[in-house]
């Protein structure tokens, strides 16, 4: 069954490459590049494109936050509190009379930054530990794998809460906690990838040529592990933002007056009946950003992982 599947999935690839070779008969024959193929496929995936547009929208919103509205995000204006959406305040104002659109835009900065740094941190440490465990094996693999097991033995949000309970509630600490809970996810992924690659013939060939471990790792093993890492990073970006918002909502992350979306929801909770718009905008923003990353992540997985192609 497996063989059959492989044949099937490799079909379109062959077709593509032979076709392009055929079409470029008079020009230089372009070598088939899996990355280009993946990109082409990604562009054809409407869901992934939609996700990409959503994320670009929020990035621009964050960048141009100061130019977007005439209001500062922390401007308390009690005369205009809980104003419904209008031409003056597109998304209305909150209980301190602050413009919600402005706060959403500044909140995009916070959420995207938290996502970026948490994922980068988890990625760097996870990859490092995963490579060491997978490549060197033996007791060091034992040790690192058990640490991953232990970290994964806690439901992730609970572990994040425990970490924040230790180091104290703040946005930076929430970021650190989210990075830590994501380390084993990357670590395990890279480890299993390295273990399967380690036995490949071309690695053996490299070793036979006298290449040192470090060089084999950097030039052969890591480049071949990039695809699943990219997919995981994109998906983790979304979860990290969700986790940061959850911590903010519980009062364990960003603290008011910071316009973090989760913290905004916590503040708005009391006005649910009086001013529902205070709750809708931050919630929809969190959902859209996470959805955007999930769409891109799914698209990337389909494009980069030939086994998933259909």
């Amino acid at each position, binding site marked *: *069954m497996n063989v059959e599947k492989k044949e099937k999935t490799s079909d379109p690839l062959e077709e593509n490459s032979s076709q392009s070779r055929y079409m470029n008969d008079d020009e230089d024959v372009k070598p088939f590049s899996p990355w280009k193929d993946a990109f082409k496929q990604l562009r054809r995936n409407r*869901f992934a494109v939609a996700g990409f547009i959503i994320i670009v929208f929020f990035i621009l919103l964050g960048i141009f936050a100061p130019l977007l509205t005439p209001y500062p995000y922390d401007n308390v204006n009690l005369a205009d509190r809980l104003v419904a959406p209008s031409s003056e305040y597109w998304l209305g104002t909150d209980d301190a009379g602050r413009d919600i659109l402005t706060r959403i835009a500044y909140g995009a900065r916070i959420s995207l930054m938290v996502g970026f740094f948490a994922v980068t941190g988890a990625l760097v440490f996870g990859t490092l530990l995963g490579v060491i465990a997978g490549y060197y094996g033996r007791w060091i693999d034992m040790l690192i794998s*058990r*640490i991953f*097991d*232990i970290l994964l*033995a*806690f*439901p*992730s*949000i*609970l572990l994040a*809460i*425990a970490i924040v*309970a*230790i*180091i*104290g509630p703040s946005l930076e600490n929430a970021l650190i906690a989210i990075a830590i809970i994501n380390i084993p996810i990357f670590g395990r992924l890279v480890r299993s990838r390295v273990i399967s690659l380690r036995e490949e013939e071309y690695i053996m060939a490299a070793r036979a040529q006298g290449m040192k471990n470090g060089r084999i790792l950097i030039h052969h093993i890591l480049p071949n592990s990039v695809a699943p890492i990219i997919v995981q990073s994109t998906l983790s970006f*979304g979860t990290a933002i*969700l986790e940061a*918002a*959850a911590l903010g*909502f*519980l009062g*364990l992350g960003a603290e008011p007056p910071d316009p973090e979306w*989760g913290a905004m*929801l916590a503040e708005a*909770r009391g006005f*649910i*009946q009086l001013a*529902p718009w205070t*709750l*809708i905008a*931050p*919630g929809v923003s*969190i*959902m*859209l950003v*996470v*959805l955007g990353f*999930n*769409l891109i992540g*799914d698209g990337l997985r389909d494009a980069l992982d030939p086994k998933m192609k259909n």
Partner: protein
Amino acid sequence: MFAYTMRRLLMLIPVLIGMTLITFSIVHLIPGNPAQVILGETATAEAMQNLEESMGLNEPYAVQYFIYVQDLLQGDLGTSLRSKAEIAKEIWPYIAATFELTFFAMLFAIFIGVNAGIISAWKQNSWFDFLAMLFALIGVSMPVFWLALMEQWIFAQELSWFPATGRQDNRDPMEPITYFFVIDSILHMDFTRVITTLKHLVLPSIALGTIPMAIIARMTRSSMLEVMKSDYIRTVKAKGSGQFLVIYKHALKNAFIPVLTVIGLQTGVLLGGAILTETIFSWPGIGSYVYQAINYRDYPVIQSGILVVAFIFVIINLVVDLMYKFIDPRISY
């Protein structure tokens, strides 16, 4: 099977040790003097000394950890600083509340998720498939706490179909027996109460169950699509079995194995994730218990609450792992 079970149990030991090390460290990694942090800035030296002695904070770390584990093994989870009660004694109602909520959330998630996934696979690329998968994608991306707030706003406050908070009508509390309120109200033979209890469960269960529902739907769909392509399904179809029988009797059996994994994992995740749902719906579960303890700096409760949830999580994962082999004997380790 036996050898695998034993190996899996042995692997649990370092994990359990690691877990206790982490929960033990919660108190000791707090920057500054733990007694000071617990009692606040204005604590007198005497009060601090008393607390240090009662919590054994002035012993060396190794000795403290040893005592901590020894107490745990004897079922002593420490004493709450706030209620002064033994945690092992007061924790059960909270655990029962969380179990009940998790059970109904998973019931909702499995019923809707599995069926939506099956129909999506059956009618692949139809409008139902498209809508269901879009809905599932949104469901995965939904912040649970926001969904909970929206439910409260629409179904409790605007429409008043369901109560907004709590497990029961607080003006008319029930004499608890097992602390599973649905079971208790049945045991009391009080059927109006069964209805009220179930009504209290609706909104929090849906909020908590939405993410697993979406994940289960997506998993069921892709797994069904795979199985539907296999030879034995073609044979069953050729034999002349009806669509319904082919799908629910033959295909689902094999498609269900990966779904079961997801169900197991999600049940564990829900136990931890319940903290947000419980806070919003004032559900007196283990999540609220820990969350309140954080606000009151009740460190023994934080430690034991987290440890208990992690322990249940580990056990669920173990059961799921062992069940694989039982359900699908083709899997070998």
